[in-house]
């Protein structure tokens, strides 16, 4: 078990390094030049002649050989010197401190909502016996995964914030400004969870052991919640591992629509301006979240189902081979 965990952590570090390196070289290979933003070239008021640009570039250290820049950046990052944004001069750490909590808050709330709503919906769908209602309940998650987030977001804003004035349209002030973005962001994930769990529950309910429990006289609800659920949770758990990634991705759109200061928002602008230090930081952040969540999910497997063996076991085929020999 420990061996497994250590191996997974080793993999995680490798993935982080590879993501960092791939991003660095990808950014370097792109045409375009972050020093141009400093020079305000694209703005209507810039008077920088092309000759003056060279000076700015060397000030920013952009004219050195790429490998030099790479190793220096890598070394700095490992030591915790994340540099400054090429566009605005703000220290990346400051950007980190301002944006990460906001994104984690949003993604976390959305994840929680997705789990709660998804589970509740699935249980309800399976519990209800009346076919038309079941159909209706089953269709809603299908809608939930089909509609783009920015659309639901804008519509939600229009009705719930501008017309009925129930929630603020922007701001990071506490609970009320978190509600709309979290709900909107949660809907696709909740829908996926609901669909998966519904199917998984239906499968489990068809298994022989349920018949046994039924024969023993358990009520429908007890069967559902007490027995079926536990055995149906696994595929949903895996899905939630991937969901974390989708939530980070979806938060980009949610932050744009709901004017929240988060990592996704910063990423879009940094990518547009090729602001390397900031892009590198966001990639490392996303990769870290992804890797950590997946590690947690893997560990949870063991907790939930002791039948799963995580340590290397000889393959079934190998046994056969030995037997035949």
């Amino acid at each position, binding site marked *: 078990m420990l061996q497994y965990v250590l191996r997974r952590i080793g993999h995680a570090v490798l993935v982080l390094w590879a993501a960092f390196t791939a991003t660095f070289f990808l950014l370097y290979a792109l045409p375009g030049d972050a020093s141009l933003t400093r020079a305000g070239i694209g703005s209507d008021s810039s008077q920088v002649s092309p000759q003056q640009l060279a000076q700015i570039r060397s000030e920013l250290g952009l004219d050195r050989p790429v490998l030099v820049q790479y190793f220096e950046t890598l070394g700095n990052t490992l030591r915790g010197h994340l540099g400054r944004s090429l566009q605005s001069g703000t220290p990346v750490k400051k950007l980190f401190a301002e944006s990460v909590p906001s994104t984690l808050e949003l993604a976390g709330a959305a994840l929680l909502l997705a789990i709660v709503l998804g589970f509740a919906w699935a249980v309800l769908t399976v519990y209800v016996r009346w076919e038309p209602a079941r159909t209706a309940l089953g269709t809603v998650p299908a809608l939930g995964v089909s509609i783009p987030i920015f659309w639901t977001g804008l519509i939600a804003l229009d009705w719930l914030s*501008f017309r009925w004035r129930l929630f603020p349209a922007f701001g990071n002030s506490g609970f009320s400004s978190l509600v709309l973005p979290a709900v909107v962001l949660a809907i696709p994930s909740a829908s996926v969870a609901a669909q998966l769990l519904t199917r998984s529950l239906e499968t489990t309910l068809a298994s022989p052991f349920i018949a046994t429990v039924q024969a023993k006289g358990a009520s429908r609800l007890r069967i559902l919640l007490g027995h079926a659920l536990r055995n149906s949770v696994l595929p949903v758990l895996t899905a939630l591992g991937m969901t974390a990634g989708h939530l980070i991705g979806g938060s980009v759109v949610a932050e744009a629509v709901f004017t929240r200061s988060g990592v996704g928002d910063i990423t879009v602008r940094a990518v547009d301006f090729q602001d390397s230090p900031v892009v590198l930081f966001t990639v490392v952040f996303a990769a870290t979240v992804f890797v950590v969540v997946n590690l947690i999910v893997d560990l949870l497997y063991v907790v939930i189902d002791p039948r799963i063996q995580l340590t290397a076991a000889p393959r079934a085929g190998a046994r056969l081979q030995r037997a035949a020999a």
Partner: protein
Amino acid sequence: MSRKVLRRGALAVSLASLTALALAACGSSSSSSGGAGGSKTLRVALSSLSQCNDPQLDNYGFGSSIGRQIVDSLVARDPSDANKIDPWLAKSWKVSPDAKTYTFHLRDGVTFSNGEKLTAQVVKDNFVTLAKYTEATGSAFVQGISSIDTPNASTVVIKFAQPNAPFLQAAAQYQLGIVAEATLKESQDDRCANGVIGSGPYVTKSFTLNKNWVLKKRKGYNWASTAAKHQGEGYFQQIDFTFVQEASVRTGALKSGQVDLAPLTFQDVEGAKAAGLQTLSAPNRVPAVSLEVNTSKGVLQDEKVRQAFRDAIDRQDVVDKATSGLAKPATGSLTAASPFHLDQSGLLKYDPKTATSLLESAGWTQVKNGIRYKDGKPLKITVTYANDPANTQFLQVIQADVKKVGIDFELRALPTDAFDKALSTGDYEVHRWSGALIDGDVLRTLFSAKTLNKSQLPANNDLEPLFTAEQSTSDPAKRTKIIDKLQQLIVGRGYQIPIFDNVTYYGAAKDLQGVAFDDSAILLYDAKLG
């Protein structure tokens, strides 16, 4: 712990959350409508992001909105006469006849928000430091200073090596707003990251870059320009700026009373009026929104093609479709509101017939699928621009217009940085530009081969002597003549193809008064609610 207990727990949590949600919603609705009459806080939603929190150094939106409230300038433009300059931090000034020497006499009693006094030395240090940051817009105005003398604590004498006629106008801009010594001592990165210390009516309280900014009133402020409507402190305790990029969110926030002032897209102006909001308009006095032509590339090397292109654009159509009829078709190189405007509407008529005959006489006689060809090559013009809905809108209308005479106008949208690169390397046939300087000198900065050379003209072209003359003549009448001639050449030869005079619209709460505009800058000093 059994699954059932866990399950029940989850249900309980969700019920509790829903209750809390409902309570919070009820609580928040009252605070969101906090703009009711006589309020001490002004809430503004802004659309453009800044790169740097320093009005001197930022080339984007910061100085024109937030920065303008934090710093004062030496002089101010008179609101009723763009050519008239009013005293501000300088109570009087003298310009030498050869426009080489500027003497400013500073008023007394001005202090920065950190307690520093305004002295001639501070002004000198401001300009000397700014001259070093060549990429800042304001820096161009303080290049070529041969010396700055401070004979006493309230007199500054600036001597330029070459005549610099536009300098007085420039001194009124926010880019030349005066900052404290403490700010000047910081590095460029720190100034951009931390903001500046100024002497203005409002002071920074807190901010999150590109999300929000809170200003608080500067107590004891008493040195407003005579161009302002009142003297003494600003009317608000606090001004909250929020950057809201989504246009429909800004409009919705205005309509639902969550902000008091916000820029409006053209299509939302009608709806804002219908919702009972005020709509304020700020005409631009800079060059008209135009297409700048690279004369060294593609089919546009031929002057006839440039002129045909110019004549094939139905500017009224562009304005109707892209700006809901709220902007005006361009009547010259500079906007009609500009003090240096020359009426060239004869050249800017929609004239497809002339366009067609020009193209035919230039050899573009074969037509295939509606597009003209010459020697097998199509008449294709590519516009390179920063990917942005406002740009896309009007460029698409032009595309449809010029197709009618057989020009294939292709839109090449680029991400911001790639666009900047294309600009700096001359990798464009045509690109969209406006310009942020009111003075006619902007034509020099845009078209002179020594500066930006938008049209990629050869170094010793015949406009250069005119540019030099314009910059060094201090006689306004003579200067105007030179600038007129420049406009005739630039538009006549198709270096610049003006499309429309831009207008910026703002929506404001019904009871918000006193908001003023100085071209691109918003002036909130006289603003009050109720």
